């Protein structure tokens, strides 16, 4: 039975990562809804959720067929690629080498694009808008599915990972439905920084475990790896931020 630290780490990583993805999907769905109407926006989003449910229904049973070490290895390597990519970008954004992701700008860009596209008659279903919402929810949703599988499957904690992701999606959808604006105040880069650290740590842990490494302290080694990646990332920010500011 996994300990509480592992369960909290898995659910927390899944929640934070899914929150970021849900915010990005919400921005597009809101842009579609406000620019072209709620019918295509919600139909597209609902169709994507059905497609995601089918993907989960097909992939879910396969998880129990794959040998645990092979699953840990594949998931570990994918987590390393995914986590290090997020962490690298979050560090570069934190030091100002690349621009911060701006939900307001993304919302404005998407709204402008949809408004400029040819308007259809109101009775006709707006396929461009529907497909835009479908694609956004499908792509971000696949990321959420991957995150849930990646952080939960290798330890048999899919239920906790799914609960974290579901909580994040429900929270974002509820706030979005209430305010009808993109969640621009969410500290997206800080979340991506934290998620990048956690996913890289999980990736390192599971890749090692799949190769037969008995990490000192068992599951608690994940916390040590989180501390390791966090220290490295913060050191890079501290090193590069003054230089970037000097050259700005």
């Amino acid at each position, binding site marked *: 039975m996994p300990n509480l630290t592992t369960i909290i780490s898995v659910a927390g990583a899944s929640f934070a990562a899914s929150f970021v993805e849900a915010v990005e999907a919400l921005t597009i769905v809101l842009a579609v809804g406000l620019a072209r109407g709620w019918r295509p926006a919600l139909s597209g989003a609902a169709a994507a959720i059905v497609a995601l449910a089918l993907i989960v229904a097909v992939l879910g049973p396969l998880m129990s067929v794959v040998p645990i070490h092979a699953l840990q290895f594949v998931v570990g390597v994918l987590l390393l*690629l995914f986590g*290090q*990519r997020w962490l690298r970008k979050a560090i570069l954004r934190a030091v100002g080498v690349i621009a911060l992701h701006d939900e307001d700008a993304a919302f404005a860009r998407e709204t402008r694009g949809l408004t400029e596209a040819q308007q259809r008659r109101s009775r006709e279903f707006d396929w461009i808008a529907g*497909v835009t919402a479908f694609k956004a929810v499908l792509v971000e949703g*696949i990321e959420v599915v991957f995150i849930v599988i990646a952080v939960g499957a290798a330890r048999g904690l899919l239920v906790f990972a799914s609960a974290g992701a579901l909580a994040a999606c429900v929270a974002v959808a509820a706030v979005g439905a209430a305010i009808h604006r993109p969640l621009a105040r969410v500290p997206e880069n800080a979340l991506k920084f934290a998620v990048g650290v956690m996913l890289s740590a999980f990736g390192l842990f599971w890749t*090692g475990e799949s*190769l037969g*490494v008995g990490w000192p302290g068992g599951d608690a080694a994940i916390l040590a790896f989180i501390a390791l990646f966090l220290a*490295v990332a913060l050191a890079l920010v501290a090193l590069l931020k003054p230089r970037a500011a000097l050259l700005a």
Partner: protein
Amino acid sequence: MIGAVIKQLIGLFVDDELLAATVLCVVALVSALALSGLAPAWLAGLMLALALPAALVASVLRSARRGTRGD
């Protein structure tokens, strides 16, 4: 649309190609050493714990150098 979705999915894992290649090479090398018995498990773990953060450091420093030069 399918092509765009697939491209975005690949983009989930690969942004800096050199970082992705380095991570894969490190994992492949350590796996080969561990599975062939040339390196004990503790050494394989140590190599992963040192090489993977080092790959991240190298990628960030390279990107920062390029970025601050305005390339």
